[in-house]
């Protein structure tokens, strides 16, 4: 195999590793968003029991105060009809709204990015506003959901980090293998008086350039795949919406992968070149 053919193989091997690493990073971000959404679905709702509000007017007034609270996205009075429907779903039997007592309950949905302790915050807010109310949120469900989401995020991040490490090893070894085939160049450099560091720099710079372009190809392909995935799952979102809607952390796998590939390829090539130079310079 010629030197050029070998370099092409290494280029595509590094590009594939970069694709895998960047895709793993993007999947970890996707898992992060899924965990957020799941945690919000589990913990983003609460029931507020309004104390000392005998009249519908007082309850409506309380609903306005609750709706204006910072973590609250939506607040709706639980009407007798709504309560009857819920009870029917839960109990299975027929429940008549007229048979139910005044409930004095407001159903609350928190903002998407509301913190996990939003029920406590809401209760404190209402107390400051002089509204006697009790926020009912099942603590065990909230805690479990928060913990599970956190575990999901950590597992995704750890998985991505592990895969990135594997890919890093592949990049270093690929670049090292390519450099080890450059015995002729390094021996020639040694004969021409290049120091070990000089020879390593010479070979390392070329490997860094190859790693950078392979990284751009791999991470670019991963980014395109991610855009495609979002586009398929959210057909209403335009390309601009996806780009502008991305958090800055979402760009890290795409931007960091080529840079890391360049550094790792240079590292692998340099270590091989140093070893080869030492062998080439041996005189005995």
């Amino acid at each position, binding site marked *: 195999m010629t030197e*050029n053919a070998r370099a092409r193989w290494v280029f595509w091997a590094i590009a594939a590793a970069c694709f895998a690493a960047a895709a793993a990073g993007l999947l970890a971000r996707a898992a992060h968003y899924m965990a957020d959404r799941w945690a919000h679905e589990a913990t983003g709702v609460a029931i507020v029991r309004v104390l000392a509000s005998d009249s519908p007017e007082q309850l409506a007034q309380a609903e306005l105060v609750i709706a204006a609270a910072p973590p609250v996205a939506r607040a709706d009075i639980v009407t007798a009809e709504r309560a009857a429907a819920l009870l029917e779903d839960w109990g299975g039997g027929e429940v008549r709204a007229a048979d139910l007592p005044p409930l004095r309950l407001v159903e609350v949905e928190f903002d998407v990015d509301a913190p996990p302790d939003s029920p406590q915050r809401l209760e404190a807010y209402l107390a400051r506003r002089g509204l006697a109310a009790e926020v009912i949120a099942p603590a065990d469900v909230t805690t479990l959901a928060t913990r599970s989401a956190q575990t999901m995020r950590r597992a995704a991040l750890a998985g991505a980090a592990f895969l990135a490490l594997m890919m890093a090893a592949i990049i270093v070894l690929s670049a090292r293998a390519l450099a080890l085939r450059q015995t*002729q*160049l390094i*021996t*020639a450099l040694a*004969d021409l008086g290049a120091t070990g560091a000089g020879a390593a720099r010479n070979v390392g710079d070329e490997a860094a350039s190859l790693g950078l372009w392979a990284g751009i190809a791999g991470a670019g392909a991963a980014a395109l795949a991610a855009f495609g995935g979002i586009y398929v799952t959210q057909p209403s979102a335009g390309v601009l919406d996806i780009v502008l809607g991305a958090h800055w952390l979402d760009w890290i796998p795409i931007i960091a992968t080529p840079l890391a590939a360049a550094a790792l390829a240079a590292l692998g090539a340099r270590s091989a070149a140093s070893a080869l130079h030492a062998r080439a310079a041996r*005189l005995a």
Partner: protein
Amino acid sequence: MNTVPRDGLIVRFEGVWAGYDGPDVLEDMEFELAAGELAIVSGPTAAGKTSLIHMLRLALPPRAGHATVFGEDIGRLPEVRRAKLKRRIGYIAEEPVFVEDWTTFENVALPLKMANRRPGDYADDVRDLLAFVGMAEAEEELTRRLSFAERRRIAIARALAGKPDLLLADEPAAGQSPEGALRTFRLLAEICRVGAGVVIATQSEHLAEGLDATHWHIHRGRIARDDGAYEHAETYS
């Protein structure tokens, strides 16, 4: 700035001893070379010719004695200074190594690439060098397709690319036809005209006949100036 010591000597060895991992292979060496001088170092196989060349190219440090190259004591040279000094030395190995998939042009240009010069700046210089060694037509030829004699000439061109002040050639006649070997010696002798010192280590000292050169003979690690008689048995007995 590249300088030559005031006495004009670019190499001066006084009582120098050197060796690899084991015992000394060069003993009590007295050797000197002036700028523009051609030195022919002859001797049988394993006499120490290649070790002397390694010392001169700063690859083998002296164990004892006083050795200066371009006025610098090579036994006490810091790494950075050694690297700088090496750039003034051209070396033609007994079996020169090239990047076989590169063209002759690319191989000759390697020292200039190492010096971070741009291809546009050195292309003409490389072509001139190829013409000087009679290889102008082979500019685009892959090095692996060259004959042994052609490779030798390319090695000379490559060694000259860095415009060395000291050129070292180890057995440049090896494996060549008598005509090719003679031509190589004459090419190397030409280089003295631009003021560079040239050292040729060879077993074929007769090839230097007719050249304006200082002759040295080395045997079992000891070197002596040769005053014209090629009978050395008594010298070392």
